[in-house]
């Protein structure tokens, strides 16, 4: 029987799925013989969307993307993808793509198309004028956890070494800064110790503040598989004020009032000590207890936990929490052969985000659930390159590439020397963190700002306040992006950029893994890779300011072709000169190595030979991490060589429970929390343009607990107003046993003015990490009307 092309593709699809679960299908041989006629070339890279770093192969036909499949040999996803990961490539051919530079002198005018020469001249002149008149700190760069590492690295190099400002920030400040703060203060080193593969060896999985079923579906699949394949021996605990699709696989759902998890986590530590479930040897070998600035002993720490007996904590937590439940969770956690904690924005986006991170890390240190297969304290990342580009590449105001602190002169000098620029060129003072940066924009202190690949006009908390600054006529704003966004609407100059697979570069995902995505298609119109844009801008900037040091910042890259040679040279400089010997050592992860890997390389990986094995699966364990061996100060199996703890110990922190910055009261009686929905990503500038994703969730809605809904007379689909001290929105209600009573939960992706929830959210931030408390504020909830026909909206 002759197989039609369509039959062939269907059988290929079936075989692809069957191969992942080890099923043999009868037509396997026949299809293999038919050959891969559905695409004439498959190119391996990473998914463009979330922080998991799933590996994909893009199928090209006649140079156009026509198909996509997961990479079965990749350790990040073993071939699985989620629906948005499958569809991201559809934005490549989208008619809305920006194709020409657009400019307007005044923000009141319409944009006009201009040439690249003119555009780069304008950008250079405006930044140069600001520096001449007001100093380097009147300029700023605000980047993204979606920019390639090469892009973030080059931008920050020109800003710091060229314009002499540390006003280098990025949207990861809004999502993972508290995890950074937590890792640094608990373990002395940023980023998780282990990786995804711990899930397959774990016996207890503690999920807190993460709806991974929707936000990280492919990782959730691994967790689900671990549980379903070991129903009786693996325990899953889900702790969250909201019951979500993630709860489906949980043995226990701990539902508490928003923000009270600090008390709950302290109570788990209390049980671990009271019932002697801690690992005495691990603690005495590797840990110390800290209370404020003091080092204390375990008795003092335990006495400070006295306010958090399980029974007392249960009263603070409310919801379904009981003392027995906390005891049970602590026992499962401590006694399992391997416990992995997973968390995300529910923990990080908090006024006490660093503390919440510390309290999770505490449980792992107390029980020794670290540095062994199946055990880890694992923060999930939202963006594909928040770890690689921004945390490691120097994309925040206080850090330089290679996990170096700006404030340390020796470390600044190392960077200056690597760049061949005069010592003292990088200013010693860290720049503005994100919220301070946009406050400075509001106040007119920043005169020229470059926003790359992100949309703060939608993603900042209390966003209306900060949109006023961005709209100021005396603030010159450049945006580099692939689509119009609410932020480009406030810009003077919009520069069109190449998208994923239209340029080459590296993303570093959640598990310290760097993976390359090569260019295989041309960008539309006159769009360029960001690295080309920065280099050409910097050359003009050097001329405007008559400053050879700026020229020097990009001189090593002059004349290189932008699709491959240029990013490769930037990656080489960054990895060979600035990560060598650091805890994030990527010296062995050359393009040559990364191109050979199905997935990528987990740092530290100091040699190519080692990098080719995939790198370091578990940091600090001598058995797995050569750097632990080379930094060994004694014969113990674990060596905590992180740069932030001079004593090379793990720190168990005494941290009291503190509520949210804004708790409900008589006037604003409900907690509001916000989050993601499956298939939409961030501000929907991409997923909102993929019709099948948009149609599934065309607008935000608010989840209301059925008992609250009944009290307020709210029926499913009714229009509901949410009002805070900052702003109001209206959106349809979904009446669901999701949020705890007294709390509503709204999806944050919607761009429509009436439904943009960040107008309502509070801009209070963590004093340590400076990450805003997106997850908790107080609102009034009011039924407006019955269901209303709504119009979806993207700019």
């Amino acid at each position, binding site marked *: 029987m002759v197989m039609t092309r*369509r039959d062939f*593709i*269907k059988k*290929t*699809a*079936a*075989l*692809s*799925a*069957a191969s*992942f*679960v*080890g*099923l043999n299908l009868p037509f396997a041989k026949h299809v293999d013989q038919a050959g891969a006629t559905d*695409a004439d070339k498959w190119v391996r890279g990473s998914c463009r969307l979330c922080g998991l770093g799933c590996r994909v192969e893009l199928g090209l*036909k006649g140079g*156009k993307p*026509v*198909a*996509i*499949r*997961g990479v079965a040999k990749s350790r990040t996803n073993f071939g*699985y*993808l*989620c*629906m948005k*990961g*499958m*569809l991201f490539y*559809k934005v490549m051919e989208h*008619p809305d793509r920006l194709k020409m530079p*657009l400019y*307007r002198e005044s923000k009141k005018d*319409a*944009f*006009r198309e201009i040439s690249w020469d003119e555009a780069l001249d304008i950008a250079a002149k405006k930044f140069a004028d600001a520096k001449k008149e007001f100093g380097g700190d009147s300029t700023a760069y605000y980047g993204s956890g979606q920019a390639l590492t090469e892009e973030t690295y080059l931008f920050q190099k020109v800003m710091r070494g060229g314009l002499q400002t540390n006003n280098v920030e990025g949207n990861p400040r809004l999502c993972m800064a508290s995890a950074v703060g937590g890792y640094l203060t608990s373990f002395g080193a940023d980023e998780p110790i282990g990786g995804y593969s711990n899930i397959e060896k774990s016996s207890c999985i503690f999920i807190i503040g993460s709806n991974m*079923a929707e936000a990280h*579906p492919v990782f*959730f*699949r691994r967790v*689900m*598989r671990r549980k*379903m394949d070991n129903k009786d021996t693996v325990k899953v605990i889900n702790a969250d004020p909201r019951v979500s699709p993630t709860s489906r*696989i949980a043995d226990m759902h701990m539902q508490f009032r928003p923000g009270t998890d600090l008390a709950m986590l302290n109570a788990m530590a209390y049980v671990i000590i009271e019932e002697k479930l801690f690992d005495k040897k691990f603690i005495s070998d590797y840990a110390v207890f800290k209370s404020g600035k003091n080092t204390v002993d375990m008795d003092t720490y335990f006495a400070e936990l006295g306010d958090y007996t399980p029974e007392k904590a249960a009263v603070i937590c409310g919801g379904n929490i009981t003392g027995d439940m906390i005891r049970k969770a602590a026992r499962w956690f401590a006694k399992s052969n391997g416990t992995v904690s997973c968390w995300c924005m529910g923990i990080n986006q908090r006024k006490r985000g660093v503390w919440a991170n510390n309290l999770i890390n505490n449980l792992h240190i107390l029980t020794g659930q670290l540095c062994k297969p199946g055990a880890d304290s694992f923060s999930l990342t939202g963006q594909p390159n928040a770890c690689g580009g921004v945390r490691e590449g120097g994309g925040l105001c206080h850090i330089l590439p290679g996990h170096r602190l700006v404030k340390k002169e020796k470390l600044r000098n190392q960077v200056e020397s690597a760049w061949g620029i005069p010592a003292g060129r990088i200013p010693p003072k860290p720049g503005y963190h994100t919220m301070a940066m946009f406050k400075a924009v509001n106040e007119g202190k920043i005169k020229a700002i470059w926003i790359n690949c992100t949309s703060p006009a939608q993603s900042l908390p209390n966003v209306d306040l900060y949109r006023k600054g961005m709209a100021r006529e005396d603030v010159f704003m450049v945006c580099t992006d692939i689509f*119009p966004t609410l932020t480009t*609407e406030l810009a003077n100059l919009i520069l069109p950029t190449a998208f994923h697979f239209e340029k080459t570069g590296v993303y570093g995902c959640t598990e310290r893994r760097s993976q390359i995505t090569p260019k295989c298609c041309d960008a539309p119109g006159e769009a360029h890779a960001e690295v080309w844009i920065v280099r050409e801008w910097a050359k003009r900037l050097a001329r405007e300011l008559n400053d050879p040091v700026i020229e020097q910042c990009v001189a090593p890259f002059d004349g290189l072709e932008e699709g491959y040679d240029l990013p490769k040279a930037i990656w080489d400089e960054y990895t060979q000169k600035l990560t060598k010997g650091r805890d994030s050592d990527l010296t062995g992860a050359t393009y040559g190595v990364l191109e050979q890997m199905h997935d990528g390389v987990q740092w530290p990986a100091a040699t190519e030979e080692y990098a080719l094995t995939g790198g370091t699966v578990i940091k600090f364990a001598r058995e797995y991490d050569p750097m632990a061996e080379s930094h060994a100060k004694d014969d113990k199996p674990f060596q905590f060589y992180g740069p932030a703890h001079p004593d090379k110990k793990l720190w168990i922190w005494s941290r009291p429970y503190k509520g949210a910055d804004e708790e409900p009261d008589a006037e604003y009686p409900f907690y509001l929390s916000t989050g993601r929905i*499956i*298939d939409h990503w961030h501000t929907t500038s991409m997923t909102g*343009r*993929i*019709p*099948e*994703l948009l*149609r*599934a969730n065309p607008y935000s809605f608010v989840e209301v607990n059925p008992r609250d809904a009944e009290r307020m007379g709210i029926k499913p689909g009714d229009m509901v107003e949410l009002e805070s001290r900052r702003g109001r929105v209206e959106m349809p209600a979904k009446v669901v046993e999701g949020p705890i009573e007294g709390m509503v939960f709204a999806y944050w992706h919607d761009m429509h003015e009436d439904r943009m929830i960040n107008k309502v959210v509070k801009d209070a931030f963590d004093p340590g990490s400076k990450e805003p408390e997106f997850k908790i504020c107080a609102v009034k909830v009011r039924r407006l009307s019955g269901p209303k026909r709504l*119009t*979806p*909206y*993207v*700019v």
Partner: protein
Amino acid sequence: MPIGGFVISVDPDIREEIVTMLSEMEGVEVHGSDAKGNIVAVIDTETSEVMDDLVHGLQKDPQILSVGLTYLNAEDEIEKIVSGELRPEIPFGRKKKNRP
């Protein structure tokens, strides 16, 4: 006309029931399942929209634990988009005021 390869995972105890349910759905072909509750299915629909509706219906079903994709071919659709025959339908007007 996109075609996708899926692994749909359910509790093994209800695997047969879900296989029957899936087999009766238009556009879904079940190619096999295993004792762990993994069901291999191909979804073949007229448009990506229909496929996405179908997948969303599955994701919302509390009995279905995970819907994993392994392969998607949308060649026909993309050819039409590239040739201009099909413009991705975004059912709302975009802001024109600041555009050239």
